[in-house]
């Protein structure tokens, strides 16, 4: 999976979840960068990503995701 394309797809998921069409994320973006990225939003993001890519994250995976790049690494690993 192309990393640039994946980031664009995740950006769309973030725009929907945060209801912010102007939101631009990078691989370094983390919960401190986006006001509403709280624990409940983390669950929303994870379940949306799981549904989109047909994968399942473990609780350890969820805790290990410190930024968007970590999410991408896990998605790539699980989609393979």
């Amino acid at each position: 999976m192309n990393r640039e394309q994946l980031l664009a797809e995740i950006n769309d998921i973030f725009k929907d979840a945060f209801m912010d069409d102007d939101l631009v994320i990078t691989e370094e973006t983390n919960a401190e960068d986006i006001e509403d990225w709280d624990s409940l939003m983390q669950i929303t993001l994870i379940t949306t990503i799981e549904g989109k890519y047909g994968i399942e994250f473990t609780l350890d995976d969820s805790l290990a995701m410190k930024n968007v790049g970590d999410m991408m690494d896990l998605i790539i690993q699980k989609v393979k």
Partner: protein
Amino acid sequence: MNHYTYSDIKIGDEEIFTHEITEDQMRLFLEITGDTNSLHADEKRALEEGYKGRVVYGMLTASLLSTLAGVYMPGEYSLINSEELFFVKPVYVGDILQIKGKVYEKNDKFNIITLKVSITNQNNEKVCRGKMEITVRQ
């Protein structure tokens, strides 16, 4: 009360009001709903569980969104279709809440607006966030 019609409303329009949560409101909510859960009704139990006191019913906090739609945005011509809410921090009796709604989307076919909503306390902490879809009847 506001009287915005669908054509009056633009994406980005915003309405804000404040409301203090009182002991009396908690008592009335208990009477109306019969929700006797100890988190809301038993101070000692709530303290034991690590809260600062009895936690205000999430649905009491959320009920202020009825006011947001029915009085402020759009006001008179409001018909709430749906709400999706997240209760991200506890609310306590005495908290002064600021309720905010911002128009995020408009559906011209069905005269529906989507509001991005948030409720913050007197310490500027967000306690509730989410979205509402509202039909504007005129």
